[in-house]
């Protein structure tokens, strides 16, 4: 099995190429199941690699394969090489495993879409790029994967580029898929700018970008808290805020819901957005040398978690609730990384992948049933019609809320305990508040979508706002039904994982934390000294927060209560603040986007158009003028030539004579 790590990203790449070149001519079944097969093969090789890795003794769990020397210029060298250690092993299992389930689901979800080849090409390409990102053995190759997932995110968000409005059955205005894709890419680019600068600084100071060399040299080259490493880690973190949707670059993720739901599940819940978290965990050696940056990471993480959770409280579109929830949970992961609990952050990454993908895929099943309508004010009563979807969504909601026995409880609790144990009491308090809000908004979603009486009618026609009721899509009335097996089987598998996935990371007072032990050789031992009584207290508090959130949601929404509406009336400013998402998008538009466009126009029309074209044209015209004047010399007039010759001879002889 040696020298075979390259197969893991190679299979999806092959699938992407096949679908790109001949996909449209293949029958739908072959094109889509081919994509599934490549991810399955990748998962198989990943599992084998994982077992090979665990066969090694714990201290030596690294498999490093170099494919070839990619760039070798002067003193700079970067290889295409793969680095398998416990951290990347977990990542590849999550990416290929959850990715496989989502691909299978997508075969059913996209079965009526004419562009299936393009879809599966982009999905496979994405898996390839993500695997390159997590398996890379140097920052440059990681950056290749980093950019690659950004491109695929753009392609997949804007998959329905020909649609202008994707909101069905509601008058909410959402950004078009094409604009959403562009927004995601441009915002990510800002982050990538920081990442690039960080890499450049790294090469400038350390002379290498390979993980093993960088981490070995960093500890001798930098003192703790040195400005160089602080700036470097901050720049890398800027990249992470873009990719992992933290403040200030989180604005693209909610609009990314314009893409198909499997895309939201795969890219914007389970994998791509976790790239920033992975990168910071991978670079923990550098971050541990920059305590200031760690504080920044923790604060931004908690801030993001809080802001996103508050916005999610008042969202009406089910996918938007989940999108803001993702931003919020990523904030939790950043909080964990910022306080030094790198293992806890990755643990939450894994459990979050399970239950968030589950939630998104269930939402997709609801979309399929309700002709793409997801405004929760118009749903309701679906639990009898779609029982499998309901129960799996409920399990996901319980996991997200951190209810004990579900996976989310173990990972979230570990993060909160770490935050408290490292002295970040203020951040911990906010974290508990966010947990409460998380439980509230997700159960609000459960109740509004599945509970109560239906607020829709059988046979009702729902349309995209502005379209006529008799277009091809909306002509069918609502006939909600349970999803097909190809869609609900992955849901069930993910639900099972959302339940059992947490038991490998038990809190210290309950049992062994196998997850932390497994990643300890990579991420370091971060045993926190906490008295058992304190730990039980913290656990009790976080569990209580979850239950309070759930109970409040039940109180507000079971039965047609007026409480939320009355609250919105009593505190209109608060409701407006949250419903308008803190006006972040308009603020960015006026502060950054408009000046940027003005600057771009100035460069284009004035500088490029007038100055540079003026210089180029002027030069050309100048030469043409000189040429036309010189042309008069060629008169064809023989006597003129003779005169010129005579004059020349006279001048030359005069000069000769005068010199002697």
């Amino acid at each position, binding site marked *: 099995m040696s020298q075979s790590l390259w197969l893991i990203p190679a299979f999806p790449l092959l699938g992407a190429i096949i679908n790109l070149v001949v996909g449209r001519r293949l029958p739908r079944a072959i094109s889509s199941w081919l994509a599934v097969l490549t991810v399955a093969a990748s998962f198989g090789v990943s599992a084998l690699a994982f077992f090979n890795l665990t066969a090694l003794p714990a201290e030596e769990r690294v498999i490093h394969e170099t494919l070839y020397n990619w760039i070798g210029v002067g003193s700079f060298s970067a290889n295409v090489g793969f680095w398998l250690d416990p951290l990347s092993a977990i990542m590849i299992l999550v990416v290929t495993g959850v990715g496989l389930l989502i691909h299978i689901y997508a075969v059913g979800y996209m079965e009526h879409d004419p562009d299936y080849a393009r879809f599966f090409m982009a999905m496979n390409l994405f898996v390839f790029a993500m695997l390159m990102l997590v398996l890379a053995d140097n920052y440059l190759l990681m950056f290749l994967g980093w950019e690659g997932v950004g491109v695929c995110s753009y392609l997949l968000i804007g998959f329905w580029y020909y649609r202008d409005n994707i909101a069905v059955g509601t008058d909410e205005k959402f950004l078009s898929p094409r604009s959403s894709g562009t927004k995601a890419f441009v915002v990510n680019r800002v982050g990538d700018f920081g990442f690039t600068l960080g890499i450049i600084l790294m090469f400038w100071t350390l002379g290498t970008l390979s993980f093993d060399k960088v981490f070995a040299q960093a500890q001798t080259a930098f003192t703790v808290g040195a400005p160089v490493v602080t700036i470097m880690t901050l720049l890398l973190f800027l990249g992470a805020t873009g990719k992992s949707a933290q403040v200030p670059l989180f604005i693209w993720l909610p609009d990314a819901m314009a893409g198909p739901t499997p895309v939201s599940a795969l890219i914007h819940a389970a994998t791509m957005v976790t790239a920033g978290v992975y990168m910071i965990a991978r670079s923990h050696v550098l971050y541990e040398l920059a305590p200031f940056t760690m504080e920044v990471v923790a604060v931004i993480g908690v801030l993001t978690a809080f802001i996103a959770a508050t916005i999610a409280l008042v969202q009406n579109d089910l996918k938007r609730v989940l999108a803001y929830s993702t931003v919020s949970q990523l904030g939790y992961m950043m909080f964990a990384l910022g306080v030094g609990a790198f293992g806890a952050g990755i643990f939450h990454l894994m459990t979050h992948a399970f239950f968030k993908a589950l939630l998104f895929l269930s939402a997709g099943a609801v979309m399929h049933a309700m002709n793409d309508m997801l405004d929760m004010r118009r749903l309701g009563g679906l639990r009898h019609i779609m029982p499998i979807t309901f129960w799996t969504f409920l399990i996901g909601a319980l996991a997200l809320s951190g209810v004990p026995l579900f996976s989310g409880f173990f990972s979230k609790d570990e993060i909160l305990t770490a935050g408290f144990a490292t002295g970040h009491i203020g951040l911990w308090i906010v974290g508990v508040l966010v947990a409460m809000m998380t439980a509230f908004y997700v159960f609000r979603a459960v109740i509004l979508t599945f509970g109560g009486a239906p607020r829709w009618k059988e046979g009702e026609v729902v349309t995209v706002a502005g379209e006529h009721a008799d277009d091809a899509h909306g002509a069918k009335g609502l006939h909600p039904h349970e999803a097909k097996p190809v869609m609900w089987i992955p849901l069930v598998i993910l639900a099972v994982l959302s339940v059992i996935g947490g038991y490998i990371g038990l809190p210290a007072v309950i049992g062994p934390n196998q997850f932390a032990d497994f990643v300890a050789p990579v991420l370091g031992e971060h045993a926190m000294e906490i008295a058992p009584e304190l730990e039980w207290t913290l656990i009790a508090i976080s569990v209580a927060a979850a239950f309070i959130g759930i109970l409040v949601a039940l109180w507000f929404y079971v039965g047609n209560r007026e409480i939320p509406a009355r609250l919105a009336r009593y505190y209109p400013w608060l409701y407006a603040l949250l419903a308008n998402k803190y006006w972040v998008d308009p603020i960015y538009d006026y502060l950054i986007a408009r000046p940027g466009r003005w600057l771009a126009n100035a460069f284009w029309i004035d500088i490029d158009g007038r100055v540079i074209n003026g210089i180029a044209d002027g030069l050309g015209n100048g030469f043409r003028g000189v040429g036309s004047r010189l042309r008069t010399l060629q008169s064809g*007039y*023989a006597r003129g030539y*003779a005169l010129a010759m005579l004059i020349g001879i006279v001048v030359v002889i005069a000069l000769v004579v005068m010199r002697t």
Partner: protein
Amino acid sequence: MLTVTHYTILSAILFSIGAVTVLVRRNPLIMFMGIELMLNAVNLAFVAFSRYLNNMDGQVFVFIVLTVAAAEVAVGLALVVAIFRARDNVDVDEIDLLKG
């Protein structure tokens, strides 16, 4: 007494007349006469210097110049005949196909 200077000045005058003839006249035959005048002016200068320096080289060179002049006139007159046959007009000013 006649010195070499007299002969040189005479040669220069003849040369100038020949040059101006080439420049001013339009008829190629007259222009050839001017060219011949220039060549013979030069011959005169060569012979004068040869006489006053007591060196035969000058007179030998005159032979060569005479030969060249004869050959050149032959070719030139052939050209003039050809041009006349082509366009019934030998005005030098009209031959401006190289214009532009």
